[in-house]
């Protein structure tokens, strides 16, 4: 029987990992990811899981160790946040290039400096071209569900790419919410046995991982990675469909909320999407035709989904919890680029909000929608919510 628990997002992810019972977990504590590691370490200490845990001396070694473990055929997991992810950066790319089905939970937190421990998306946005699949959770429930789904996507023979499960630091990681967890057996059967390929431990078929790959072959290997990303939508949908059968919860590439008749649509990632939904409910009560599209899958970025949903709307407001200094904010840039090819382009507006954990409230969201209602969205103007002038 599914169980409703009041738990934090960090505990929800650790709980999912407990049910998955991975072979190897290598992680280093960093706020606000730390409770994920702590909860999991307790499972290991209590013998609830068979996992071998590597308490590494840095995030760089965490990612390095899971690369080694995954290449050895172990189902491997790590978790990090912010500057920890930045420290891993080099190896994040290597993990994807070696096509290792690693899963990593990222408690999204602002990158330094100045140092800040609170939520924004600058950490994962800096890794968006690393070749990892990026799933973005709105709440602890989605963080749990994506963790359960992640290995099925990562290990799929058509994909073989690492998956990053993003969940907002503190807001989701430390906030207690109601999470409906599945039975251990159900998760175990859903995730299944690891699909191992080219294990280093198979000495009968020795493989060489990570050779020097020069201009005569490197490009072809990158092309393969590009291709693998193209297979993600199909595989994600398959896995999501199966997941719906065991959970009753339906996921897709994008989450569409009240979009059918919406004239104005907001686009946002993570926990803010929930606050936007809440605000949409209020605005709908006032007769405003507003909706939300939230990328559940941000990498690969599925243009067609946004073209389908956003075509011919009156206004599209994109909220970014990360700035791209000297360029358009990352989510906005992607949406704007997608809309180049739609039949009827909506008015578009870019809003950056919530950097370093600055609160985003329904009032801020209404403010952005107001601009849209007035026809006052300017595609080339970046605006800020909750910022003091």
């Amino acid at each position, binding site marked *: 029987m599914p169980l409703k628990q009041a738990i934090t997002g960090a505990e929800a992810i650790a709980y999912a990992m407990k049910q998955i019972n991975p072979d190897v977990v290598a992680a280093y504590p960093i706020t606000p990811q730390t409770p994920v590691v702590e909860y999991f370490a307790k499972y290991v200490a209590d013998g609830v899981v068979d996992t071998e845990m590597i308490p590494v001396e840095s995030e760089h070694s965490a990612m390095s*160790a899971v690369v080694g473990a995954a290449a050895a055929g172990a189902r491997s997991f790590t978790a990090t946040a912010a500057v920890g992810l930045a420290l891993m950066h080099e190896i994040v790319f290597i993990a994807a290039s070696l096509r290792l089905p690693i899963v990593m939970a990222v408690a999204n937190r602002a990158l330094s400096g100045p140092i800040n421990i609170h939520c924004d998306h600058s950490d994962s946005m800096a890794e968006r071209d690393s070749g990892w699949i990026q799933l973005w959770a709105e709440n602890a429930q989605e963080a749990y569900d994506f963790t359960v789904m992640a290995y099925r996507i990562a290990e799929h023979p058509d994909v073989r790419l690492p998956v990053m499960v993003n969940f907002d630091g503190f807001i989701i990681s430390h906030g207690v919410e109601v999470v409906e967890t599945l039975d251990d057996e159900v998760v175990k059967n859903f995730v299944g046995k690891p699909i191992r390929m080219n294990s280093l431990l198979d000495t009968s078929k020795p493989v060489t991982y990570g050779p020097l790959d020069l201009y005569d072959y490197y490009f072809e290997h990158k092309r393969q990675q590009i291709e693998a990303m193209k297979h993600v939508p199909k595989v994600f949908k398959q896995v999501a469909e199966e997941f719906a059968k065991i959970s009753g919860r339906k996921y897709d590439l994008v989450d569409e909320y009240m979009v059918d008749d919406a004239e104005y649509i907001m686009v946002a990632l993570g926990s803010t999407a929930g606050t936007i939904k809440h605000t949409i409910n209020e605005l709908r009560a006032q007769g405003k035709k507003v909706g939300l599209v939230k990328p559940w899958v941000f990498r690969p970025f599925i243009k067609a989904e946004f073209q389908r949903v956003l075509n011919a709307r009156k206004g599209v407001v994109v909220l970014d919890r990360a700035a791209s200094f000297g360029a358009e904010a990352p989510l906005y840039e992607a949406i704007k680029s997608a809309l180049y090819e739609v039949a009827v382009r909506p008015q578009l507006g870019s809003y950056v909000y919530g950097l370093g954990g600055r609160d985003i409230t329904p009032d801020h969201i209404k403010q952005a929608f107001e601009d849209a209602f007035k026809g006052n969205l300017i595609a080339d103007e970046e605006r800020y919510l909750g910022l003091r002038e």
Partner: protein
Amino acid sequence: MPLNAIELAKMFHDKNPGMTQGHRMCPGCAAPNVVRFALMTAIAKGYEPIIGIATGCLEVSTTIYPYTAWNIPYIHNAFENVAATISGVETAYRALLRKGELDKDKKYAFFAFGGDGGTYDIGLQSLSGAVERGHKFIYIVYDNEGYMNTGNQRSGATPPGSDTTTAPVGKKLAGKLQLKKNLVEIMASHENVYVATVSTSDPVDFMKKIEKALEFDGPSFIAAYSPCVRFWRVADDKAVDMSKLAIETLYWPLYEVERGVYRVTKKVSNPKPVAEYIKAQGRFKPMLSRPDAQEILDELQEYVNRRYERLLALEEATKDKPIR
């Protein structure tokens, strides 16, 4: 009986010991022999080696896509993380063994190889962490005293007076001014570790130490003296000669530390002056033509003497009572 050339030739004359022909290391490089000596020992003793290599000469020259000079499982991850990487492989082994997914009678040996750059400098944190965590693996640094892969830049292992491109001998400065980092002692300061220095010029000692490392219940760190004939500016056939000279001058003392117990495995009763070693190599030539050359030589000689005396004292001190 210790392994010797005749026995090894019988075993390996028709097969490659992990590393194969067709690699593209420089002619006369010592590193392939460091690898072969280690892997032959492991295979001869019934182990199946799995190796990780840090970015460096050995890595780039043996795995130029689509070719690999390895017929054993191999992973290269990055420059600074081979210890962490192999710790992941070793942990995966323990996890899968526990879950009954591996043949429990099979003896794996996990090796990590790194140059001095990847070990003394950029990879030191990763190495220290992996050793502290107690993974059962053997880390071998092939120490050629500089970033030779990229053309002779200074590393923490470069000796004073050596001419490198990033610490060149100039009108003012005599090349690298600092002593070589004593990494062996740093590694010996980790608890529950087996640490040894080796040289290909003493294969019996080399292989005995590898054997010990294989049997040691914990991590091992082996520092292998590995002349770079190219950037030390010696003739292609001089790697073994230089290694011998390094031992005879006490520049590279052969010893081991097992859980704090020191043992000097090669006693040198009448050491040759270290100047003989220095003067045999072109990399010191620019320094030797400076007016302060003698001062530098004297300092180095003094250091070498002091280090050896210290080792003998530690051997004596830990003989009956380990220091930990």
